[in-house]
């Protein structure tokens, strides 16, 4: 079975994720935003980063209303693993498939840097090993916000996936990645596809694609 990689207008980490999957021995396949797809045909779905619809209105808001997202929702309900990275995280939140929202960074500026993360709860498919990771971030709207009640639920249900060791953007509870209640849909702001080889500066991203 193939791994579906979604492409929205303005997605720009699509080829990077595609190549990371190929490098990990997976069979990636493009999924176009304007088309619904058969939600049973893919072993996993990836929503790569970028600036879908230029981040206009709200990051991820316009992409979350695309026809392909109907199929993503079906797949998610069916239990197919879905991973959102950066803008993919924003889209999944806007689509209501993940809790919370991602708003402008605390410093109101885009941040490109490397961050250290610790795994709070492990995900069954993506980065199964958990532990710690050093990955690049590159985002303007990466501050995860969630109500106190909701945060408590996330903690109680083990939905917090990754936390920043040193919070770069003001995210609530240092959250860098979350999961849905069923733990099949997950997303994080850092870019694992940019840490696949030593020459990139690190290899901690590899586990997300295996």
């Amino acid at each position, binding site marked *: 079975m193939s791994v579906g990689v979604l492409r929205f207008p303005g997605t720009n980490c699509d080829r990077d994720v595609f190549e990371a999957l190929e490098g990990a021995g997976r069979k990636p396949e493009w999924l176009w935003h304007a088309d619904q797809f058969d939600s049973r045909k893919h072993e996993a779905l990836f929503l790569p980063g970028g600036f879908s*619809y230029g981040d206009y209105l709200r990051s991820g808001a316009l992409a979350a209303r695309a026809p392909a997202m109907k199929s993503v929702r079906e797949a998610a309900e069916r239990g197919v693993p879905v991973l959102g990275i950066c803008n993919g995280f924003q889209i999944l939140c806007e689509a209501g498939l993940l809790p919370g929202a991602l708003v402008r960074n605390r410093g109101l500026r885009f941040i490109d840097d490397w961050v250290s993360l610790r795994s709070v709860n492990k995900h069954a498919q993506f980065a199964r090993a958990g532990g710690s990771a050093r990955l690049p971030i590159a985002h303007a709207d990466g501050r995860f916000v969630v109500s106190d009640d909701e945060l408590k639920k996330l903690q109680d249900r083990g939905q917090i996936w990754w936390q920043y060791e040193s919070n770069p953007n003001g995210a609530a509870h240092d959250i860098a990645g979350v999961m849905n209640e069923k733990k099949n849909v997950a997303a994080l702001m850092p870019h694992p596809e940019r840490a696949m080889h030593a020459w990139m500066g690190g290899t901690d991203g590899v586990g997300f694609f295996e």
Partner: protein
Amino acid sequence: MKIGVKVMPRQEVLDTQGRAVENTLRQNGKQLNACQVGRYVVLDLPGNDEAAAMASAKEMAEFVLHNPLIETYQLEKL
């Protein structure tokens, strides 16, 4: 006293957000002629003198709230 400042892109200047939102709405079958995206700023100002509040809102709008090269603004008492 609260004054609303509506900031909109100038007619002759390309409204990139408006274009993107408009296209998504159309693609989802919504009927519309055009769509513009602006900003709305609410100022809560001291005192009860409407004229004075308007004047200071105007001053703030021109100071920083809008960029006259690309935007226009309108004030309204709330």
